[in-house]
């Protein structure tokens, strides 16, 4: 079983994140960048499938040179090798353009299963599995909270607000995972040392046969035209307790439709 996991490096959602005012793209250079949290679940799932069925896990990342940190982490968790697509022309690409890059990179790999996180904490568009499914002509099983591989079929429990659907598709397929699917392992010191020796192949747009003018901010299908911070917290409401404080509080909460 050859598994490819799509891994994105994102600004840490736990620390301050900014957009770069010069071109309204995510300010990655100044951020504290980490592996997209949801992708860790996809990596864990890939490793679990590999441990049960054998095969190889390849990490595929599209991102700037600094994204090697995310790749190293995935390798130190146990992935076997990585492909890093890095090209300055990709900067500012929209999801549609990025999917073309990923699809081209996937086409150069052998895979039975593609795994990715159900969303990234920076863009939060959650459309990558659908876009790739269309481009590659393979089925997508999105939003899995459980994955089973039986022969040439992939079966998932698709998480919904009220419960789940059971959905299946023939391999090769692309599966996206929620954080309910497993508990990602920590890397180990041995894994960190081993990761140093694992192959990481770097590819440019030219290597993928992509015309640089079709990607990047200039030709993006959608752009951030403006942004503003959340307005500062207001003064709040002060309730003076004149013996009826509790009633006033209940009244306030009821007016806010909280109770």
């Amino acid at each position, binding site marked *: 079983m050859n598994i490819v996991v799509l891994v994105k490096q994102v600004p*840490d959602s*736990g*620390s301050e994140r900014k957009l770069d005012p010069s071109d309204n793209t995510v300010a990655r250079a100044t951020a*504290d960048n980490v592996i997209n949290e949801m992708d860790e679940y996809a990596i864990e799932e890939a490793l679990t499938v590999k441990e049960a069925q054998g095969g190889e896990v390849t990490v595929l990342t599209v991102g700037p040179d600094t994204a090697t940190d995310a790749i*190293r*982490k995935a390798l*130190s968790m146990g992935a076997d090798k990585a492909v890093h697509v890095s090209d300055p022309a990709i900067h500012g690409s929209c999801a549609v353009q990025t999917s073309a890059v990923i699809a081209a990179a996937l086409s150069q790999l052998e895979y039975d299963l593609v795994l990715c996180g159900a969303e990234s904490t920076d863009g939060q568009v959650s459309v990558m599995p659908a876009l790739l499914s269309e481009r590659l002509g393979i089925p997508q099983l999105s939003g899995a909270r459980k994955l089973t591989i039986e022969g040439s079929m992939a079966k998932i429990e698709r998480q919904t607000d009220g419960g789940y659907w059971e959905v299946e598709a023939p391999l090769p397929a692309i599966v996206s995972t929620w954080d309910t699917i497993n508990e990602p392992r*920590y*890397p*180990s*010191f*041995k894994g*960190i*040392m081993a*990761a*140093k020796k694992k192959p990481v192949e770097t590819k440019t747009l030219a290597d993928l046969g992509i015309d640089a003018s079709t990607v990047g901010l200039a030709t993006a299908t959608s752009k951030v035209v403006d942004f503003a911070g959340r307005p500062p917290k207001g003064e709040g409401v002060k309730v003076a307790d004149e013996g009826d404080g509790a009633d006033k509080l209940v009244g306030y909460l009821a007016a806010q439709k909280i109770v």
Partner: protein
Amino acid sequence: MRSSLVLSPRDLEFLLHEWLQVETLTKRERYAEHSRETFDAVLELAEQIATEQFAPHNRKADENEPHVVDGKVVLIPEVAAALRVFAEAGMTAAALPEELGGLQLPAVVNQAVHVWFQAANIGTSAYPFLTMANANLLVAHATPEQVQTYVPPMAEGRWFGTMALSEPQAGSSLADITTRAVPQDDGSYRLTGNKMWISAGDHELTENIVHLVLAKAPGGPAGVKGISLFIVPKFLVREDGSLGERNDVVLAGLNHKMGYRGTTNTLLNFGEGVHTPGGQPGAVGFLVGEQHRGLTYMFHMMNEARIGVGMGATGLGYTGYLHALDYARDRTQGRPLTGKDPATPPVPIIEHPDVRRMLLAGKSYVEGGLALGLYCARLVDEERTAEDEAERQRAHLLLEMLTPIAKSWPSQWCLAADDLAIQVHGGYGYTRDYPVEQFYRDNRLNPIHEGTHGVQALDLLGRKVVMSGGAGLSLLGETIAATTARAAGTQWADLGEQLDGLVQQLGAVTATLWGQGDPQVALANASVYLEAAGHVVVGWLWLEQALATEGRDGDFYTGKRQAARYFQHWELPKVGPQLALLASLDTTVLEMRSDWF
């Protein structure tokens, strides 16, 4: 860079890379497999596991002390869970040689890894740290068979280890231990006696516990030269490594402590016949190395263990300081002197100079303590791997000199940082709703164990500064002078001159103390000497840090420089009066009599 209330990753990065140039170690054969990348990854993993698995149950372990049910110790389950993650990540074995399953991580990086756990949860982290000290001692002094039997299971975290030195009647004075070891025909020994205060002495966390026990074998001289070292496993180990009979070492009771509550602390009885391995009472023990040399072996490992204690004190002080800083930016109270109008909103307390005084003192202590611990750990690496023999000798001598300071200075001043952290929190700091009171209680152990403050003072003044004709003190002086020479002509020249003066005075005072002929007079005020020397050393390390910030801008570097100035202006002037007291050969304390109190 990401922020944390456990430790400062930014400060660690500065100290390890911008100051100590740790990456240069990868040029040495022993560390050739490593790189900046692996150091960073290892530290990041330590931070993650410490933050996610150790810190969250720190308070719960404090509030739920270990207790005994049906003869077995009960701990909250989070302790075992965290320790499993720690072992599975390979942290226990990190510094061990490759052939024993280790990663040959440099000591300096390993200490930086450890301090994350010490700061996050000192009680839980004590189990693996004692185990590592135990394993290190065996690697250095046990037979290859003993190493093969005991070290790999400890490296994998399946067994834990202890250090059993103290007895109810003999703590500081190990010469007076009474545990006996009687040789048997098969080459093993049978031990009888009681060991007090043994950390991690009993628990159900691992399938076996390897005690390293000091005891007296017959025929040895009285005092410390008649002490031998034994391996006493809780369960005897069969040829194939599986566990055999229960050994005759049993838990007599748990001690109820002020802090470090997650670590069981035990009174252990050896050889009382509760179990009868091989059909007879007596705890079965296996001699390590030669008879009567046990204390020497113990002390050989003491340098690293004592740096580790100092680092624990630093970690606890550091997290207290970070919590205080966080609180002071958030808590509003009062108004500035320049704007007393009650209609204006109150300001965060960090706006009050007196609060900044407390925070700056805390910063200078904890960052100074961290610099001291890492510098000493770097010396451990030099001692092991420096290119030529002379350099290794130098590192060894300097480390010998600095060890009592590396243990005691943070135990005193990083404890003071926790005291200040409580003060910054005002009334809230005195409650159990905030973590700072626990940090203080936990940290209060550090001036006591691994040789009390008083014992470290005797070690420094009685042994270290006089050894090899005072070579250690001279070397320390030369090392400091090399730094102050670099400061000349910079904005730090005045700090350099101040330090040069103090080093010179310290040398003169040492000569006066030992020149007057009466060792009682020389050593009576040893703890003042330890404090003065400690402040000089940390003042020097602040100069080192300040010089490492030269030419760099930004809040982090400016803050470092301000803390260096704080240490220079507020702390170093305390040293002069201490040296003057010592130089006066004051006998007030020496002459005081028990009856006069």
